[in-house]
């Protein structure tokens, strides 16, 4: 490898990128847009479930009960209706997810000790939201039951209700249980995968498409010089984009960064080498920019999104799919980046994942050097 040829290739790539508006937009605007879109768009917290109420009694007691629903952040009582069909209509139209019907003998039955059944109609199209609605509703009713019991006991002249067991909960790493803290570091990983492979997927294909490859391979430049010369500028760009995304995660989305920057830098370097080499291999094989960019996106974005543990926890997947995830480099990086951000994990605990990334990086760079031949067709 000769330095003057290597630096000539790097200089040429940088000049070309700096004069190509689409490339510049991808480098600058895409990370920003993706960070905002994913950072705000992907939420696992279920709050403000819309609720319709049909209170057939309309007593002091029933209104008091409904206040318990209104008091939590999980429910949002949108409307009170005065007939059953209106309730059904609201569920059909999707105006609410939960419809509550209070019977006409509510207060009387409560007074005599029940049983009172409050009807809850749930739109279970989205099973996840439905499950959450059910458990939240049950929790609200439990609390209300306790209030009634306490009052009843007090009236009987009894002492306080005994509840000797309490749970002392400490949430670690993501104290406020916010899904943003879990998602945003993952988004950084996804953006790196997409941008890294997308940009490099164009570099070799562009030379074939524009006919410049024929001149290039008639010179003494070696395949190694060509690869390194083309990847180094994108590596630097990739690191800058990573820094931009990490900065947004920390200062815009308020995700805590508890780890060491050196660990973060090391893992980002390995992961960038993986995605850049992958994009380069695709580019060598595809020979057209359109095909190359599509293949690169499908090969990196989808696995990084679905199989890395970004959305679906890997230990909840079927065993077979879990096996497949071991072949997805993003899986290892996803673990590392979340741990580094939230837990502040140091290298000894991440050794397995770092090693796996290093193996992928080595394998793909070797593949990239072998894939390219200085021959036409």
């Amino acid at each position, binding site marked *: 490898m*000769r330095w*003057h*040829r290597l*630096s*000539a*290739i790097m*200089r*040429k790539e940088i*000049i*070309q990128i700096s*004069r*190509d508006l689409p490339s510049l937009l991808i480098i600058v605007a895409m990370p920003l847009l993706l960070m905002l879109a994913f950072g705000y768009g992907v939420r696992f917290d279920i709050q403000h479930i819309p609720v319709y109420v049909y209170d057939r009694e309309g007593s002091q007691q029933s209104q008091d009960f409904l206040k318990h629903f209104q008091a939590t952040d999980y429910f949002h009582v949108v409307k009170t209706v005065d007939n059953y069909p209106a309730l059904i209509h609201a569920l059909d139209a999707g105006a609410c997810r939960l419809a509550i019907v209070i019977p006409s003998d509510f207060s009387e039955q409560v007074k005599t000790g029940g049983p009172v059944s409050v009807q809850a109609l749930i739109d279970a199209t989205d099973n996840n939201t439905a499950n959450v609605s059910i458990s939240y509703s049950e929790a609200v009713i439990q609390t209300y039951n306790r209030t009634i019991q306490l009052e009843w006991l007090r009236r009987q002249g009894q002492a306080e209700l005994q509840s000797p067991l309490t749970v002392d909960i400490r949430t670690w790493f993501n104290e406020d249980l916010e899904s943003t803290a879990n998602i945003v570091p993952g988004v950084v990983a996804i953006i790196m995968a997409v941008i890294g492979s997308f940009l490099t997927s164009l570099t070799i294909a562009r030379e074939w498409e*524009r*006919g*410049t*490859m*024929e*001149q*290039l*391979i*008639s*010179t*003494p*430049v*070696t395949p190694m010089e060509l690869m390194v010369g083309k990847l180094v500028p994108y590596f630097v760009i990739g690191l800058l984009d990573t820094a931009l995304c990490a900065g947004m995660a920390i200062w815009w989305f308020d995700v805590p960064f508890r780890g060491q920057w050196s660990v973060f830098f090391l893992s980002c370097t390995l992961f960038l080498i993986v995605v850049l080499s992958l994009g380069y291999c695709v580019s060598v094989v595809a020979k057209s920019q359109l095909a190359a960019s599509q293949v690169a996106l499908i090969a990196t974005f989808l696995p990084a999104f679905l199989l890395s543990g970004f959305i679906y926890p890997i230990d909840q997947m079927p065993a077979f799919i879990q096996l497949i995830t071991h072949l997805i480099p993003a899986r290892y990086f996803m673990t590392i980046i979340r741990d580094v951000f939230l837990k502040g994990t140091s290298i000894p605990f991440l050794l397995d994942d770092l090693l796996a990334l290093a193996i992928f990086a080595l394998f793909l760079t070797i593949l990239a050097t072998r894939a390219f031949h*200085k*021959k*036409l*067709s």
Partner: protein
Amino acid sequence: MTNHDTAPVIARDLVKRFGDFVAVDRINLEAQRGEVVGFLGPNGAGKSTTIRMLCGLLRPTAGQAIVAGYDVAREPEYVRQRIGYMSQKFSLYNDLRVIENIRFFASLYDVPASVLKERESWVLDMAGLNGRESTLTGTLPSGWKQRLALGCAVLHRPSILFLDEPTSGVDPISRRQFWELIHTMAAEGVTVLVTTHYMDEAEYCNRLVLIFQGRIVASGSPAELKQGAMTGALLLVECEPLGMALDVLQQTPEVADVAVFGNALHVVVPDAKAAIPRLRTALSQQGVTVTKMEPIRPSLEDVFVSLTTAQGALGKG
């Protein structure tokens, strides 16, 4: 390893097949130092394929190419340091400035930093691009682009130059300038192999190689080709009506070949003196008015047409 006695370019039984299609069929050739060898032939005859095999850009199906004393298949990198190549399609970077393209290729060709400045100005002078150093290459007129491409291909002062249709799509004045450049380099000892399908350009070559359907059908200097390749004499016949005359002459036994050239006919016969009176009689008997019938020197186009029709007939038979 380099043997200075051998010719700079040697092709031995070069064959290239693409599937069932034989693009190049056992081509043998040698080019000497300072020689300008022109590959002439119709599109798809195998000219570019041959050049690409000689440059090491395509792997031959069979045969051997020895360029600058090195076997191209075994030591392509040694060969690449000693040759300059200009492809059919413009293949410099349109989004780079003129000087950036020059510097880029100078680095790839290992031009030492000590002579870089001198080479840069040499190429700019040669291509007539002084004052255009910072023009974006894509905005140059095509003649200028071709000169720049040639300049970039010779930055490392190669001893052998391969040019694949270097003047296609270039205006006549730029073409002449381009050929002057080629001759200047040849005079300095550079071996030039150039493909073209412009007949007038063929006259600029020291030696021509006529390629048709992947095979060399004739080779020699333009003068040799014009004399030797055609058996018999060539007559120019101006007459009216042309179509009738064509029919009559085709049926006359002593006529070897007839072809329409503009508003006249070119007729090949074994002996001009004997044929002229007989042909005049035959034509006037059929009511053709002959205004002119005289022996002429064949052009390269005549040679080319005559050779390819002969080959075509062979191929069919």
